């Protein structure tokens, strides 16, 4: 590891500050006693945290977002396993085209997807339903899940599976006892990344969410169109707090670096 020079150190500090400052500002503003967005100067108040309780639609929206993100990420990861194994192992015609197709949701603007899904779901009777939301989110998070599962599938030593076969394992036993445990870090990081993408998504969701299926970001977006008050900052502060706790727990039980870099197939315990 090379040491950073003073200039590089200053640059990195500035960079990290620039990234973290907005998050910090939001959390500080959440404690304001005033009725408008301001940094508390003389005293702090929990007024706007208590105010969340008066808006149960934020709580509902939060759970909507969690279930939506969890379900769509899980299904996307489920589909990405066979896709990744096929792409990683077999050289079939149309392999490149298939990969491009799977990754194409990254290229299409979410506004376009939103309008397209709105029209399509209305047509097939899924307009405004939770199922519709899950389906659309599967499409947009699939590339993220696939990329991470694919990287763990590509990095796997085929000889390990051959060893299992030579020891008498059936195809299913090879998959369950050897392949799956070895690509599990990729599945976990793919799921986590997909979850974040889904939880975060507003541009497309705002088109297809109905009043009963509104997600948290969409709810916040709609709220600040009518009211400019610190409620959104206290909601944001709660989400940030939950995220931090989630990451700390994940780091303790699994190791964050391994999760996000997607390595570890060689030494998964």
């Amino acid at each position, binding site marked *: 590891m090379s040491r950073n020079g003073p200039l590089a150190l200053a640059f990195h500090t500035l960079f990290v500050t620039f990234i973290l400052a907005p998050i910090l500002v939001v959390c500080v503003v959440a404690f304001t006693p005033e009725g408008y967005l301001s940094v508390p100067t003389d005293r702090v108040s929990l007024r706007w945290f208590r105010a969340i309780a008066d808006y149960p639609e934020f709580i509902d929206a939060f759970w909507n977002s969690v279930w939506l993100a969890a379900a769509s990420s899980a299904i996307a990861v489920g589909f990405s396993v066979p896709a990744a194994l096929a792409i990683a192992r077999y050289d079939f015609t149309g392999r490149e085209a298939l990969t491009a197709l799977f990754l194409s949701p990254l290229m299409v603007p979410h506004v376009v997807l939103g309008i397209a899904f709105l029209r399509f779901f209305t047509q097939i009777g899924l307009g405004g339903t939770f199922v519709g939301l899950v389906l659309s989110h599967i499409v947009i998070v699939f590339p993220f899940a696939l990329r991470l599962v694919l990287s763990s599938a590509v990095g796997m*030593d085929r*000889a*390990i599976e*051959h*060893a*299992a*076969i*030579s*020891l*008498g*394992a*059936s195809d299913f*036993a090879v998959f369950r*006892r*050897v392949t799956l*445990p*070895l690509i599990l870090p990729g599945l976990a990081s793919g799921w986590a990344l997909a979850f974040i993408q889904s939880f975060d998504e507003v541009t497309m969701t705002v088109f297809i969410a109905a009043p009963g299926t509104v997600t948290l970001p969409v709810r916040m977006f709609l709220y600040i169109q009518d009211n400019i008050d610190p409620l959104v900052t206290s909601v944001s502060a709660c989400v940030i707090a939950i995220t931090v706790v989630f990451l700390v727990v994940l780091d303790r039980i699994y190791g964050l670096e391994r999760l996000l870099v997607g390595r570890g*197939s*060689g*030494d*998964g*315990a």
Partner: protein
Amino acid sequence: MSFLVLEGLTKRFGDQAAVDSLDLVVEQGEFVSLLGPSGCGKTTTLQMIAGFVEPTSGSILLDGRDLLAIKPSQRGLGIVFQSYALFPHMTAAENVAFGLEMQGVPRAERSQRVSETLALVGLAALADRYPRRMSGGQQQRVALARALVIRPRILLLDEPLSNLDAKLREEMQIELRQIQRTVGTTTILVTHDQAEAMALSDRIVVMNKGRVEQIGRPHEAYEKPASAFVAGFLGKTNVLPAAVEQRNGAAVASIGDGSWPLPAEASGRVTVSVRPEKIAFIDQADCSLAGTVRTRIFQGNHWLYQIDTACGLVTVIRQNAGEMMPAEGAAVRLTWRPQDMTVSPAGQDGRI
């Protein structure tokens, strides 16, 4: 009856033949090495026996049954891979137990056989350790135990020692041979290391470019190489150009300014290979080749000479018997017995 029979075994990738009509018969309990440079088809042959590569044509019979009709998972072969291919998420004992579990061996018998086999490879103390916390040599032993515990009909070893350092490799060679003798499993070893093949095997199959060059016992293949390739691959050799003519009804090979009677049928331009340790210094002029000592290196139990001759540089190894040896720059004459020559058609380069 022969145990394992490979007949006309061929594998083509496109129009390239990786293995070209290979015939091999292996007896029960025998240790056979497939030896050759990389790309000679030895690994492909092993993978066809294991079932991971489908032959283009030919057949494999094991104990009279057609092996190709059996799924790879049902062939009952133990394989040790070059990368060991241990299951990283299982302990040593779990790795070894995997095959027994797949065969549905009851738990009590399973754990007994696992500890027996781990003890056989000297790893009884490390049963609960994960592979990533083991040295290369220990992982190697786990891989061997995992292959042996299922009592395989054949043990296939794919360059099992190539990832170990030289000292450990020598220890493992001895141990591998002992373990193989103890359990008596028919074993096929794939290797590019001629010393390893000679040390371990009952018989060696020397392969080059998908074809078998020679099948024979290590000593026999070394002393009587069937081709210049085998001579060059199994140990060091000197390759010399020679012209063969008939004199008084007998074939005589002229090499530089010397000439040797040839026992074998040959004529015209040929290539002769002679092992460095078979060459001696001599004073007489018949059956000898003139040269000048270019370098002389003392290596303890022997002297290593490089001699400039009319046929190019010749390497000579002489035992250190405490005698005076020619110094650098000295004019010498080299001789060897006619039966120490291997004669092959000209143009065949013995080197790799």
